[in-house]
């Protein structure tokens, strides 16, 4: 399989035009224009307060934007709630919070989408869920020691992999990942990087990765967007940029803000 070429004209699955958001006197977003292609992994970076988490919360239906448009597969959409966004195929995986430690791998995979019989009684079809869970995990090459192991007994990487697997098991088209490699060792990280690449390349899953760590972004992403002061300030394929470039950009922005703050104080 050839590596995806992010610069080629491929179909855009998600597009935002001029998204703005303000909280009282604070302007969080000043018009975000972003494009996500099918099967692409896009990295979002930005300092704290740059607006990336506000933007992500708009994409997941948590906040409505003040103005601007969101297009999903070419159609304009507005998300009323998180579950509304989820119904349309936008899933989020939060940092290590998602799994229930006391439930098994299979139970976590099917949480709130359990297969049951006997109508309202909700008798769990455990055998079927375990079989499907095993098949699905094998399909996306996630190895866990035991489908009946409690999530608590898994490593951080395995837990993250199960959380990603749960989000993608059903009708997800776009996956938002919040610092997916946080607090992970090299082997653990490799597990998640492989999973993300496999989902993107072999299953056409599109993903947005939010991370502070540029090294992680280079491992995971096809393209990187830097958000500064509520705008996309920089949009580059990872092949056309380097770790040094990104670091330099962020530092110069930091210096600029420092100077700006200083000059305002001088006034």
């Amino acid at each position, binding site marked *: 399989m050839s590596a995806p070429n992010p610069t080629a004209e491929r179909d855009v699955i998600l597009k935002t035009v001029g998204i703005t958001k303000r909280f009282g006197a604070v302007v969080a977003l000043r018009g975000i224009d972003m494009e996500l292609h099918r099967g692409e992994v896009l990295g979002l970076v930005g300092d704290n307060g740059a607006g990336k988490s506000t933007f992500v919360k708009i994409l997941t239906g948590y906040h409505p934007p003040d103005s601007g448009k969101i297009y999903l597969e070419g159609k304009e959409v507005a998300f009323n709630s998180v579950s509304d966004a989820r119904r349309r195929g936008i899933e989020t995986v939060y940092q290590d919070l998602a799994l229930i*430690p006391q439930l098994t791998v299979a139970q976590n995979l099917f949480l709130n989408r359990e297969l049951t019989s006997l109508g309202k009684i909700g008798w769990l079809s455990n055998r079927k869920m375990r079989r499907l869970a095993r098949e699905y995990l094998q399909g996306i090459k996630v190895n866990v020691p035991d489908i009946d192991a409690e999530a608590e007994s898994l490593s951080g990487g395995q837990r993250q992999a199960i959380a990603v697997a749960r989000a993608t098991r059903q009708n997800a088209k776009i996956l938002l990942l919040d610092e997916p490699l946080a607090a992970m060792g090299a082997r653990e990280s490799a597990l998640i990087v492989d999973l993300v690449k496999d989902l993107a390349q072999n299953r056409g899953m599109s993903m947005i990765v939010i991370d502070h760590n540029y090294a992680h972004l280079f491992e995971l992403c096809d393209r990187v967007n830097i958000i500064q002061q509520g705008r996309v300030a920089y949009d580059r394929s990872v092949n056309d940029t380097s770790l040094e470039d990104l670091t330099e950009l962020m530092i110069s922005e930091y210096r600029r803000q420092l100077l700006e703050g200083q000059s305002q104080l001088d006034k």
Partner: protein
Amino acid sequence: MSTFIRSAIQRREATVVAVTLGVVIYFGIASSAFFTTANIVTIAQYIASITIIGAGEVLILVLAEIDLSAGQVYLTSPWFMYLLWRAGLPLGWAIALSLFFCIIIGLINGVVTVWLNVPSLIVTLGMTYALFGLVLVESNAIQVNTPGATGLFGWAFGIGSWSTILWALGILIIGWIILKRTRFGLHITATGGNLIGAAEAGVPVRRIKVYCFMLISLAAGFIGILDAIRIQSMNPGNSGLDIVLPGIVAAVVGGTALTGGRGTIVGTAIGAIFLGVLEDGFNLIGVSANWFYLAEGVVILIAMVANTQLTSLAARLRR
């Protein structure tokens, strides 16, 4: 270590089974009256209410909440029944309506806890005092005889020596099925294990909590009516805390975590047997009333220490 011992230790109920077997053997040897049918019925009747309230507490404790009012609901529901019956309602209707009131009490506990964000410990303690006061006011603090202790009805609802026990067993099995085999039970564990994670997955965590408070009140109210009919009198001065605390102890000794996410109904039943055997055994071997509570407290503490030590051993073995 052999696989059998290893897997036995890893079962959550293992310690309490061992400790209970220990006290059963001890009292069996120490007193010839222990293994008689009459004594076993006495123990079983004593533990029926502890088991049911304990099983209800398992659902609540798994949610990382607590319900202190279940004991007072147990004492109050027969008063509801008595007052309704005295007002002219047929006994069957009086029972049904008083159980409905119990469900409402659970609903109030749940709603105040979940939507008004008051810790359940305080909500249910408040409810305990309120119900205690309500009964004192209504009864003028005078003891009464329980109605309904005649015929087949009375036999089925508590007079028959095994009827309370059979009811309790039925409720226990239903509780076990709910927790282990149904979607609702899975969502209880999910809510108690990781509230935010469960809510993010779309589990209706608040509703689940309210339903559980309603369930424990219903179960406590029901077993309270059975016991009142069996004992044939109701004393408004009884404290519900004396009823609910052994239930909570049974749950915790049986392997249910106070921190939420983990609970075992079977362990609670065994924990209740442990408490029942202890109480009965001390009586049989003639421990003086003055020493009784001291001995009981020390034995519970020892059992609990053994429990936590074995649990961490089991965790080490799993690694």
